[in-house]
C-alpha cells in the first residue's frame, strides 16, 4: 500500500514537471512565427535578432507569467476550498477576482485621469484591497449560510455586483482607457513585461513557500475544526493566514492578467484525482504545477485557435474547467446519496 502510493506520487509529480517544461517550450516556440526547437537556443543567445525579440520580449515573459500565475491561481483555489470545506470554492466563483478587478479598475481610471502611470506594485495593492473586500463579504455570508451551494451563490452575486460597478466605471471613463481596461478585464496574459514577471515571481514564490510551510496545520484543519483544535492547531490564526494568502495570490493574478475563471476550482480536483490523496504537503506543490500546466495549455489555445485573433483566456479555461466542476458536483451528489 505504502509503496504503491509513493509510486503514484512520484509518477504524478514527474508528469506535472514534464508538463511544465513541455508547455513552456511549446508556448515559446509556437505562434504566428514558428520557431523550431533547434533554433530556440540561437534566438535566445542573439537577443537582437527578429526571433530573439519575439522570444525574449513577447513569448517568454508571457509564458512565464502563465506558468507563475496559473500556479498561483490553482493554489488560491485550493486554499479557499480547504478554508470553506467546499469543493467548488475558488477565487472566481466567490467573487474575489471580481472584487479585485473592481478596485483595480477604479484605481486605473482615476490615476490615468490624472495622467499618472500605474506601477505593478500599485496594481497588486489595489487588487489586494478589492480581494479583501469581497472576501469580507463572503466571510460574512458564510456565517449566515451553512450550505455550500448557498455560499457559492452568494459569491457569484458579489461577483456580479462588483462587475456591475466595474462596467459603470468603464462606461464613464475616457476612450483611451477603455480599450486598455476592457482587454485586461476579460483576462489575458498578453502584454506582460519582464519587470511584471519579476514582481509576480517574488510575490507568488514567497506566498507559496509560506503556504507550503503551513501544510501540517492545514492537514489537521481538513479534519474539521473540533479535531484540529484538539490537535493543538491555532485555528483563528490559521484562518487569518489562509484568507490573507489566498487574497494575495488572487490579487496578484488579477493585477497582471485580469480575472481568470475555473482554474482555481478545477485544477485542485484534477491533481487530487491524479494523486488520490488530499494531503496538503502533496497537494500544494502539485496544485501549483498543475495550475501552471493548465494555464499554459489554455493560453496556447487562446493564442492559436483563431490566430491572429486572440481569445480571452477565460473563454478557454471555462471550456476545460467547467466540465470538471460539473463532474465534481455529480460525484459529490452521488457520494452523499448513494
Amino acid at each position, binding site marked *: *500500500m505504502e509503496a504503491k502510493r509513493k509510486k503514484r506520487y512520484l509518477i504524478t509529480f514527474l508528469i506535472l514537471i514534464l508538463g511544465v517544461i513541455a508547455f513552456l517550450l511549446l508556448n515559446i516556440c509556437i505562434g504566428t512565427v514558428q520557431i523550431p526547437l533547434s533554433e530556440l537556443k540561437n534566438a535566445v543567445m542573439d537577443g537582437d535578432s527578429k526571433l530573439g525579440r519575439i522570444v525574449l520580449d513577447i513569448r517568454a515573459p508571457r509564458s512565464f507569467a502563465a506558468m507563475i500565475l496559473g500556479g498561483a491561481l490553482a493554489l488560491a483555489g485550493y486554499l479557499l476550498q480547504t478554508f470553506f*470545506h467546499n469543493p467548488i470554492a475558488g477565487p472566481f466563483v466567490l467573487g474575489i477576482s471580481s472584487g479585485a478587478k473592481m478596485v483595480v479598475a477604479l484605481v486605473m481610471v482615476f490615476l490615468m485621469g490624472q495622467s499618472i502611470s500605474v506601477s505593478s506594485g500599485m496594481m497588486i495593492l489595489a487588487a489586494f484591497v478589492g480581494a479583501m473586500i469581497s472576501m469580507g463579504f463572503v466571510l460574512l455570508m458564510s456565517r449566515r449560510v451553512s450550505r455550500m451551494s448557498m455560499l457559492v451563490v452568494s459569491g457569484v452575486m458579489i461577483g456580479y455586483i462588483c462587475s456591475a460597478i466595474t462596467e459603470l466605471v468603464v462606461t464613464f471613463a475616457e476612450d483611451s482607457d477603455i480599450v486598455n481596461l476592457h482587454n485586461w478585464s476579460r483576462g489575458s496574459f498578453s502584454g506582460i513585461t519582464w519587470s511584471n514577471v519579476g514582481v509576480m515571481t517574488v510575490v507568488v514564490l514567497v506566498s507559496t513557500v509560506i503556504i507550503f*510551510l503551513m*501544510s*501540517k496545520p492545514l*492537514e*489537521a484543519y*481538513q*479534519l*474539521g*475544526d*473540533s*479535531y484540529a*483544535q*484538539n*490537535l*493543538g*492547531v*491555532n485555528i483563528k490564526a490559521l484562518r487569518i493566514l489562509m484568507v490573507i494568502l489566498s487574497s494575495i495570490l488572487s490579487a496578484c493574478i488579477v493585477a497582471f492578467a485580469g480575472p481568470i475563471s475555473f482554474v482555481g476550482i478545477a485544477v485542485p480536483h484534477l491533481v*487530487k484525482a491524479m494523486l*488520490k*490523496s*488530499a494531503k496538503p*504537503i502533496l497537494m500544494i506543490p502539485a496544485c501549483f504545477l498543475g495550475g501552471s500546466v493548465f494555464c499554459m495549455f489554455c493560453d496556447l489555445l487562446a493564442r492559436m485557435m483563431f490566430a491572429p485573433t486572440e481569445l480571452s483566456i477565460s473563454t478557454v479555461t471555462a471550456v476545460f474547467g467547467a466540465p470538471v466542476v460539473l463532474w465534481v458536483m455529480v460525484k459529490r451528489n452521488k*457520494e452523499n446519496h448513494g
Partner: protein
Amino acid sequence: MNYFFRAEKMTVGYHNKPLIENVEFALKKGEILTLIGPNGAGKSTILKSLTGQLELIAGTVYIGEGELLKMPGNLRSQKMAVVFTKRLHSELMTCEDVVATGRYPYTGRFGLLGDEDRRIIRQVMDMVNVTAIKDQDFTRISDGQRQRVMLARAICQEPEIIVLDEPTSYLDVRYKLEFLSILQRMKREKNLTVIMSLHELELAERVSDKILCINGRYVDRYGTPREIFTRGYISDLFSIESGSYDEESEDMELVRADGEPKVFVIAGAGSGRRTFRELQRKSVPFAAGIISRNDLDYPAAKALAAKVLAAESFEPVDDETLQSAKEQIDRCDTVICCREHFGTQEAYNEELWKYAQAAGKQIYTAEAWKNTRIGE
C-alpha cells in the same frame, strides 16, 4: 486525596450565556466518568468546554498540577484526545490515515511519520481491532468500525485522558459492548482516564466509576453508580411521564393500561413478563399475582399491572394476600396461568388456579391466550 483531573466551579454555555453553572468533579487516574441526562441537557456543552472547543465562562480545569485550558495547544494535545459525534472529514483517507492523524502532536514541521510513529499506529490498530480494515476508505466503513477507528486515532495521540461524546449512540448492541470493553481495557492497561457521555443508562452504570447527572440547568447529582441509581431517581432526572424505569432491575416499560382489571395473570419465576407486555400492547388492564418481590416478574408487574398481589421476599405468602388474590379473581372473567407446573414452594398459586377453576372462570395458558383475539 490526590486527584489527577479536576474541574472546579465550571460555568459552561454558548456566547457567554451560562447554560450550566458550578460543574465540579475530580477524577483519579484511570477512572471513567460518565455524563448522563436528557437530550439537550448540556452534556455535549460540558464536554466541549472541557476540551477547550468552547470557551469556559468561568472556572478552571486542572490536569495534574497544570491548568489544562491555559496550556499551549501542542502540549494539551499530548494530554487529551477526543472522539466527537461530529464526523471527521476524511477526503481520500484510508482508516490507517485517519488513525495516523493522532500522531500529529508528535510529528515534525511537515507532519511526516517516523518509524516510531508507524510502530505505535500498528500497535494501536491491533489493540482496537481495526488492522483488517486499515486500507479501506474511512467513509466506506460501518458505524461500528468507524467508532473503533476514531478510538484508535485518539489512543494514538497517547493522551492521559480521553473525552468521548456519545461514542456508542449509533452502534448496535454487539459494537456497544465491544467498544466499552476496549475502553475498559485501555483504562486497565494504560491507566487511561475517560470522560464521556452516554445515553444507555444500563451501560453507564456498568462501566463508570463516577457519574455526573445533568438536567439542563445544573448538575443534579454526582457520585458512584451506586449513589446515582437509587429508586425513582432516573424517572426524576429524565422526567419520565410515559412509561416507567426501574433503577434496581433497569426494567423499562411503556405506559400501563389503566382501568378495572378483567384479567388475572398467575405468574412467577419470570414466566409472566412477556404476557404482561402482550396485555399492555393490547391495552388490557390486568391484575397479577402472587409474585414475590424478588421475582423476575415483579418489576414488570409493578410497572404494568393495574393491581399486583405481592409477597415479601423469602417469606411465606400470608392468608391476607391469598384472600385478596381470590377476591380479585372473583372480579375477573379471565385467568391466564403462565406457570406450566407449580413448584413445591408455590402452593399458593396452585390454590389460586384451583379456585379459578372452581369458580368457572375462563382459564388459558400463556400460549393459548396469545392465540385468542381478546383485546383486539
